[in-house]
């Protein structure tokens, strides 16, 4: 009896397995979403956005993710499996924006459309299109806000910059340099973190984009100069960590923390005064636009257009703060909460 059941089950499984690819080939468009990790709520949200849109359009979506940020190898394998599966397009947030280029080319040569989400490849035209936050603009907004908030005191500010990782991927560079430019500092080479010689910069440290890293990095920079009064952070978890460090120094009130992301806990931290202002981005929109683009490519072979004056499609960024300043457009926390992700 047991054996018969098992046999039937195996038979059904075998039938199912042979049947599925045929069905997919017949009428379904395949697409792949490859994110840096499954951990970051940003990518979790991206996946949700992509899945919802794919279901709506009847696209068969497979998702892949690296184990940790910087896991390049897994992403390469994911692209290879995607090509093999006969998918029409790939949405990719690359961990290693340069090293991924050859395998991306392989996918494009095989007739897939490759769209970089959130993180542009290097060079940016290695992908068919890029749907991203204008990260430089995101940095610039918080830089301008911090400078306007300080007013005359901006001239002798003491700035700490909490970046992402030692390898400094493009998003890291763009936000960091955008912030400094917005603050009114000569950034010299905009492709390089740390080549500035302005005395107002106390230093850069890396956080891995999490609370623990943010706290340790803040502590280290405070050891270098305890007069820090402006803190730029790569994302909101790092900002939360930096705030904890400042609190342990008893200095949480005199220091402006600015950040980028616009996740729900981050916006809540803006509301509670932990973060002064944050630039909100919209991962859900990137992913759903990306799925639409793959559908268009499969149907008519049409590629998406870039935003005017940019070499990518800008999915938008808004400054979220309850302390608006003149000359820097912003939305309030209530609206930020409405549109937050995670």
């Amino acid at each position, binding site marked *: 009896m047991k054996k018969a059941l098992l046999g039937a089950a195996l038979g059904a499984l075998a039938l199912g397995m042979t049947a599925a690819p045929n069905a997919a080939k017949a009428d379904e468009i395949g697409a792949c979403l490859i994110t840096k990790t499954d*951990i970051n709520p940003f990518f979790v949200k991206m996946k949700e956005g992509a899945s919802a849109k794919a279901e709506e359009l009847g696209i068969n979506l497979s998702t892949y993710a690296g184990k940790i940020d910087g896991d390049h190898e897994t992403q390469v394998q994911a692209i290879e499996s995607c090509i093999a599966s006969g998918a029409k397009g790939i949405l990719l947030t690359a961990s290693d924006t340069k090293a991924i280029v050859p395998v991306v080319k392989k996918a494009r040569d095989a007739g897939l459309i490759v769209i970089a989400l959130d993180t542009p490849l290097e060079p940016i035209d290695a992908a068919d299109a890029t749907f991203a936050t204008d990260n430089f603009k995101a940095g610039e907004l918080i830089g301008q806000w911090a400078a306007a908030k300080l007013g005359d005191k901006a001239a002798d500010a003491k700035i700490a910059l909490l970046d992402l990782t030692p390898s400094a991927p493009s998003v890291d560079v763009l936000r960091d340099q955008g912030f400094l430019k917005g603050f009114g500092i000569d950034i010299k080479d905009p492709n390089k973190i740390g080549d500035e010689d302005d005395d107002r910069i106390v230093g850069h440290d890396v956080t891995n984009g999490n609370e623990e*890293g943010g706290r340790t990095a803040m502590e280290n920079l405070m050891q*270098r100069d305890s007069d820090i009064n402006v803190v730029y952070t790569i994302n909101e978890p790092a900002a939360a960590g930096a*705030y*904890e460090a400042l609190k342990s120094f008893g200095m949480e009130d005199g220091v402006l923390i600015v950040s980028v992301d616009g996740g729900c806990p981050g916006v809540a931290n803006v509301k509670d005064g932990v973060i002064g202002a944050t630039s909100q981005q919209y991962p859900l929109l990137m992913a759903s636009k990306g799925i639409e683009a793959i559908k268009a490519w499969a149907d008519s072979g049409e590629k998406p257009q870039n935003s005017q004056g940019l070499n990518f499609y800008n999915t938008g960024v808004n400054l979220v703060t309850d302390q608006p300043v003149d000359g820097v457009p912003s939305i309030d926390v209530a609206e930020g909460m409405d549109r937050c992700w995670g």
Partner: protein
Amino acid sequence: MSETPKSSRQKQEFEHALESSDRNVAQFEHKHRSFFGNVQHFLHGNPTMVPVIVLIFSIIIFGFVAGSKFFSPFNLSLIMQQVSIIGILAAAQSLVILTAGIDLSVGAIMVLMSVIMGQLAVTIGIPAPIAIIIGCIGGICAGGLNGFLVTRIKLPPFIVTLGTWNIFFALNLWLSGAQSIRSQTLDEIAPLLKFFGESIALGGARITYGSILMLVIFAVLWYILNHTSWGRHVYAIGDDKEAAELSGIRTNRTLITVYCLAGLVCAIGAWASIGRVGSVSPQSFQEANLQSITAVVIGGISLFGGRGSIIGPLIGALIVGVFNSGLRLAGVDVLWQVFAIGWLTIIAVAIDQWIRKVSS
């Protein structure tokens, strides 16, 4: 072992014959040892001395390089704070490594338990003390699973903990939804979870309860390992499992308790990590398992088991902290800090190998 027989011991019949015979023909040869030979012997007897010497030298050197800021009581207490979590994990790791095993899952157990404590207390609303106790029991169970697979299914510890590392990591993501629980929420609902983040000011220094907890854990483990039969069994198993078994130690049972205790220490570390980070962060401490192994190895515990003092990893963690702090204050780029720690690890193992080659 002892070269001079104790006078209290009664000589047996047949030994009397030796009295009148020439004993020089059957004597241990006393070789003249070189300076290095002496050093090697000394270190073989006192394996913790290497890290202690390295720690003292690195403090002196960074004192010169990084200037007075490095030596401030505040900075020294900050180093303690920064290494406290890795230190606690290194304590758990040492227990396993002393049995000639390795535990790649310590960091994952810790993060998972911190998420469990946080979710129970904040999302479900269970009183914080109970959430912490459940987390600790979870830690014991997680360690117990490792121990069970190692002893009963007889899989190598490396493979078992490589597997459970991934399993615990996935559970962590599932339970937390990859979202941090904010510091402000913890303050509101379960401030007890942040207990180990509190600190006492001592002169210029600021010593967190977490730093003190780390020292207490090492002190307790030192006592257990050196002054209980269980502790001596752990060393015996690490030195030679078969011999330990033949001499009547129930090795499998002891091994399981080792993994359980390691899991418990990780869970206590989870509580401390919430205080250190300020929030329950499923994304923090991704590399903690490897950092804990680094601290253990630099601390002079042999990866081949059975040798080394539990105090070593404490020193090892402090050495890593001193290097990071000193290099940062000296304005050295992060990647060179990683570089330095890498070399430190290799040199530590090389020294361990050299000491192991000690000849009589």
